[in-house]
């Protein structure tokens, strides 16, 4: 091989390597797309260590960004949900980032962090990821947004839970004092067993041989609008198929949506919150009528150490109900204080936030926070 040929080959190899490894500007890979009349505006974006690079024939986008949003509305914002859409994965590939428990006054700014990694087989021009506004919840529970992800209901539930829990802890402070409040916070901060979860959607065409049906223990909440009648799921090895719970509407109002919290127990007797089984009947569930919460999916669980977890027994408890008129029911605090339920159910988002304030800034800061609203 001549010297000239060697030089040409070396240059070609160097160019290929450079083209594959060069980190491109990530800002062009992300498009933030808010409506013109949006009550929040993007005022800044910190790209941190974001980068986009080619790896063989695949494209890798590593996005580490913090968006700064400003409240343009005349009311305080309580929660916001952003829809994250990966262009390579439409129509199914979408995600959302929600921040509940906010108290952003008009004109104030707040950060929303989005950290994501996208790996796709080939590159096409245009942004790889689009961020849209799905909804904003205000302090009077009014809502703005396209609500494609049902974020109105989700954020309303979180806000109602926040109000319930703040009131409860204010009451604890008044009646039992600061030490009792501290004990509650320590209880929230206590380590709980965590699950790794895998969900595969779609109709189960065949359940693996050897599957067994595991019945739910239905926990009834006093005063709940729905009664859990029975429930079951098929367990095959570490895989659980199609959990379902039948309910009866014992209230005098039609129900258009409900969720059953689903708890699984392993063979060592440890209990985990596995998730929620939702139901949005085609027609609202009339008083006295029966309905079915069903998750048409296959689920796998693993303990925190990565060991596959086979559910030995399961229980269900009503988590939320949305009536046909839009009003939402969540369990009373007095019901949740039942020691059995307290052990089983995780703290709410607001409890988690209050406990974090206590952990970072101490009891005085927490008491100050509880006095705010």
């Amino acid at each position, binding site marked *: 091989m001549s010297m000239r040929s060697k030089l040409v080959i070396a240059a070609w190899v160097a160019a290929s390597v450079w083209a594959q490894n060069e980190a491109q500007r990530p800002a062009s890979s992300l498009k933030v797309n808010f409506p013109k009349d949006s009550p929040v505006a993007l005022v800044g974006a910190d790209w941190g260590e974001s980068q986009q690079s080619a790896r063989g024939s695949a494209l890798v986008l590593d996005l580490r960004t913090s968006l700064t949003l400003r409240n343009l509305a005349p009311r305080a914002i309580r929660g916001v949900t952003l829809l994250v859409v*990966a262009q390579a994965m439409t129509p199914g590939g979408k995600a*959302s*980032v929600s921040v509940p428990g906010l108290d952003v006054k008009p004109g104030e700014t707040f950060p929303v962090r989005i950290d*994501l*990694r996208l790996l796709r087989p080939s590159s096409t021009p245009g942004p790889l990821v689009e961020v849209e506004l799905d909804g904003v919840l205000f302090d009077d529970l009014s809502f703005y947004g396209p609500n494609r992800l049902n974020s109105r209901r989700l954020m309303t539930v979180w806000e109602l839970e926040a109000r319930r829990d703040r009131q409860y802890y204010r009451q604890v402070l008044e009646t039992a004092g600061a030490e009792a409040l501290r004990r509650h916070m320590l209880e929230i901060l206590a380590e709980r067993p*965590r699950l790794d*979860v*895998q969900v595969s959607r779609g109709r189960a065409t065949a*359940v693996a041989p050897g599957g067994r049906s595991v019945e739910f223990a239905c926990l009834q909440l006093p005063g709940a609008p729905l009664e859990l009648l029975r429930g079951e799921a098929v367990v095959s090895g570490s895989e659980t198929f199609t959990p379902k719970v039948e309910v009866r509407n014992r209230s005098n109002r039609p129900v258009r949506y409900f969720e059953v919290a689903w708890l699984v127990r392993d063979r060592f007797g440890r209990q985990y919150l596995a998730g929620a089984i939702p139901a949005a009947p085609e027609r609202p569930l009339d008083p006295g009528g029966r309905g079915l919460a069903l998750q048409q999916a296959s689920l796998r669980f693993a303990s925190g150490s990565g060991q596959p977890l086979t559910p030995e027994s399961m229980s269900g408890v009503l988590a939320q109900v949305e009536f046909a008129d839009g009003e939402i029911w969540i369990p009373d605090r007095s019901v949740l204080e039942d020691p059995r339920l307290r052990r089983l159910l995780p703290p709410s988002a607001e409890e988690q*936030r209050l406990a974090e304030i206590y952990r970072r800034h101490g009891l005085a800061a927490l008491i100050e926070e509880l006095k705010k609203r």
Partner: protein
Amino acid sequence: MHPRETELALYAGGELAWWRRWRLSRHLARCESCRMQVEEFGRGRQWLREQDELPPGINWSRLAAEMKANIRLGLAAGECVGPVRQPPLRWRPAALVLPVLLLVLAGWVLQIWHPPLRRPAGMRGPVVTATAAGVELRQGGAVLTLLHPHASDVGRFASGEGVRVRYVDAETGMVTISHVYAQ
């Protein structure tokens, strides 16, 4: 209830652990049939010990030399009538080279083979997996992962449409909820 025969035999030989020995001795104190069985085992052991003792006057060195000579003679006779033996395999070099070859082969296979994501039996559609690092959606060769690198107190739950992760952002202290949908 009477103890097993093996336990009685071990007791007679003094080979039981102290706790079991103590329990058995309590039983023997009130059970004549078991006590007799233990005595029988004791007598048997005594008889065996007596059989071990060889008569006096045996020349041990001579006996050993004769036994060795007989063994050698038997082996030599076997060589004469046995089939022709193949030259021994040089197994030591093979044993050294084989693991190296296996290692190289495994490395090569891992380079070219990427195992497919294990899909649950009978299911179609995208797969959402939540782990300690984040929530990952795999669909059609693309992978979208929502990460939470600065998170503490992370809870992961299966929701109707995918997986929901709730955590405290360690930098801002704000509770953040990521939701990845598998629709």
